[in-house]
């Protein structure tokens, strides 16, 4: 059991454990915070996978952006002080069955499959390479993504804008 393995298991534990908390916690605030740990765990896993740029991006965007956004959403839509921020669940039974089924299926598939050509490449740093490829092969998706982001920004603003003319 190498250090790599140990690190993996630790990170896997953090990720899965916190994800379970996200899913199972009744309090939405707890879920949000547990999600923070999940994101960190995932970022760690990225590091293990030699994906330094992605790991950083993960932390920056998910933790710094999305999670903050989610917490804002929670804050804005939940009367934190009056009413318990507990959320209700519905059809838990079918959900467990279905998710169990899908998880079992995925596990079966993953374990049964003979994964060919295990390379296990080690990169020295991916940032530069990613940048190059973004500017060459993936230029169009890159630009489209920027447009999408812009539109999403505008859309979000318009949708969430408070209508003043309302009586």
């Amino acid at each position: 059991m190498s250090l790599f393995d140990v690190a993996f298991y630790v990170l896997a534990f953090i990720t899965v454990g916190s994800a379970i908390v996200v899913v199972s916690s009744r309090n939405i605030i707890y879920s949000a915070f547990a999600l923070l740990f999940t994101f960190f765990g995932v970022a760690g896993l990225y590091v293990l996978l030699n994906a330094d740029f992605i790991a950083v991006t993960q932390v920056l965007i998910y933790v710094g952006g999305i999670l903050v956004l989610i917490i804002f959403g929670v804050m804005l839509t939940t009367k934190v002080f009056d009413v318990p921020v507990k959320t209700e669940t519905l059809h838990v039974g079918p959900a467990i069955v279905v998710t169990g089924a899908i998880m079992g299926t995925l596990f079966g598939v993953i374990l049964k499959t003979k994964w060919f050509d295990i390379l296990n490449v080690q990169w020295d740093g991916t940032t530069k390479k990613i940048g190059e490829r973004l500017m060459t092969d993936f230029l169009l998706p890159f630009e489209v993504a920027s447009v999408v982001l812009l539109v999403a920004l505008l859309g979000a603003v318009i949708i969430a804008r408070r209508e003043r003319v309302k009586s």
Partner: protein
Amino acid sequence: MNQNTLILLAILALLLPFLGFVLLIFWGRKRLPRQGDVIETGLVLGSLVLSFIIFFNKILYFPNPIEWKFEWVNFGFVENWGEMKITLGILIDNLSATMLVVVTVVSSLVHIFSIGYMKDDVRYSRYFAYLGFFTFSMLGIVLTNNFFTMYVFWELVGVSSYLLIGHWYEKKSASDAAKKAFIVNRVGDFGFFVGIMIIWASLKTFNFGEVFAGIEQGKLSGGLLTAAGILVFCGAIGKSAQFPLHVWLPDAMEGPTPVSALIHAATMVAAGVYLTARTYAMMSADALTFIAYIGAVTAFIAATIAITQTDIKRVLAYSTISQLGYMTMALGSGAYVAGFFHLVTHAAFKAGLFLGSGSVIHAMHHALHKIHDHHTDPQDIRNMGGLKKKMPITYYTFLIYTLAISGIPLTSGFLSKDSILAGAFAFGKLSGHTAIPLIGFFVAGLTAFYMFRLLILTFHGEPKRKDIFEHIHESPKVMVVPLIILAVLSLWFIFGPNPFDASATWVEKYIHKPESVVPHEQQFEFNLPKEGVLVTEYEHALHEAHIPAMLLSLGMAGLGILFAFLTYQWGKISAEKVANALKPVYTFLKNKWYFDELYQNTFVLATLGISKFARWFDIKVIDGIVDGSAHLTKLWSFSVGKFDWNIIDGLVNLLAYITGFFGYITRLLQNGKVQTYIIYVVFAVIVLFYIFLG
């Protein structure tokens, strides 16, 4: 003057009255002067002049018949027939020439008389138009050379008679009489037409000459020939008011009196006799016997009825029927010339009688009008009497006519009647049908009796209604002149120099009995020429019968006159007592032998009944079946509809229900919650995964 000119004149004479009709019917009432009466009268007078020209030319210069034909319709060549065509035309022989004169003379006089009589009538112009139309049709009958146009004009005469009888159509009785006249005539015409059909089918022609020639060749003989003869005579039965179709003529007196004179006394009713004379050659012995009996029966029935009638015109009407029966009887019994002679003389004096009665009625009418009496019948002889003083001209002319019709010497009637009776006498003797001369002589007496009864009651004695009598005046000149002319025409010298010898008259001289074309075995034996003998048995008998018949008829007439005077003038015999003594007979006669009632209750009611039944049958049975089948169809479709509703629709509904059930189930899944759908999606993905990869 050649034949063609004569034909041309004949056509002109035929068309002149028609021209008058056309002018008057379109422009008469408003445009023409005096509503056109003068025009029409003038045209008929023109016709009269032409007729005289034709008449004298014909009998003086043309011994043979003049005929003109034209092809009217051509059917081309026809299988089993040959060249099928219908030729029409005009035939002028002595018979038609004489008749032409008779018709135009009477017609002209009636026209003139009408100017006075019909004055102030509402439909004055139309009246003259119809008179013109009648004259045209009557001349058509006279001049035609074939059965077809004979029938055509026959019917046209019927129509003009219909229109004239119904001239005062506001009166129900007038329009009823007109209708009756036409329909009864149609019955006779039906027989006539069937006869024509037989002739056409067997002889392929309508032309008189060709028909007779064909019969002579034996193309039509036996029972069919007799049938054809009798059926053609049926036309005469209708038009000449012979028994059993005589019922229309008395009713026809509803028309204006001059019309009665022209149509229902002198000309149209004589057309039947004329037709019989025309077709005389084709009459077989059986047909002739039939004709003779019809004539005799008619003469007898009508004479008996005439005795009891009180309406001046009805008496004359029955007398007309009786005289027509006489003529028919004469023709049937072989006295061809006598029959026709009587037609001619009768035309004059009967027209005169009617016009005379018209003059009386006219006077009565005006008198009643003066005293504002609108209920008294101006035609009833029981209201008259003593008119002799007030209307002398009318009286004396009327007297002459009465003498003529009674067959008193010095009148034309004596000449013709005597010949008829002689013929009947000979016929009765030879054929054994003694009833015919017996009836003949008896009716001669009756005729004298009822005619003098009429004369005495009307003109002699004391006036029965003084108030009316006060206002009676002699008729105007325009009415009196025709009376005088007709009276002159009723005297012997018009016809022949000897007042006692009919054979010396021009009628006997120029009109000859046509040779019969009937096969010998179908003729009377006594009519057949014998070898070595110049005259037939019949002619011989006729000659022998002359003097006895003359004496006997004179005796009968004298008796009749005597009784009339005894009863009505001198009051020796009370008419009422006699009537009461013979009550049933009197009632029977008074009611005209109940013919009208008989026909009404049999033929008319039966026809109406059948027609009602036909209507009922149509509505209830045929339409019942139609509607019934429609209902059945509806019922069937209704049950099909039920079936549809319950069974087929049931199935459909079941299907729909099942679908709905599944839909309901599915709807349960479809709860509108996104997350539920996501479960389905994921589940489906798993299932699909296992399906494709499992």
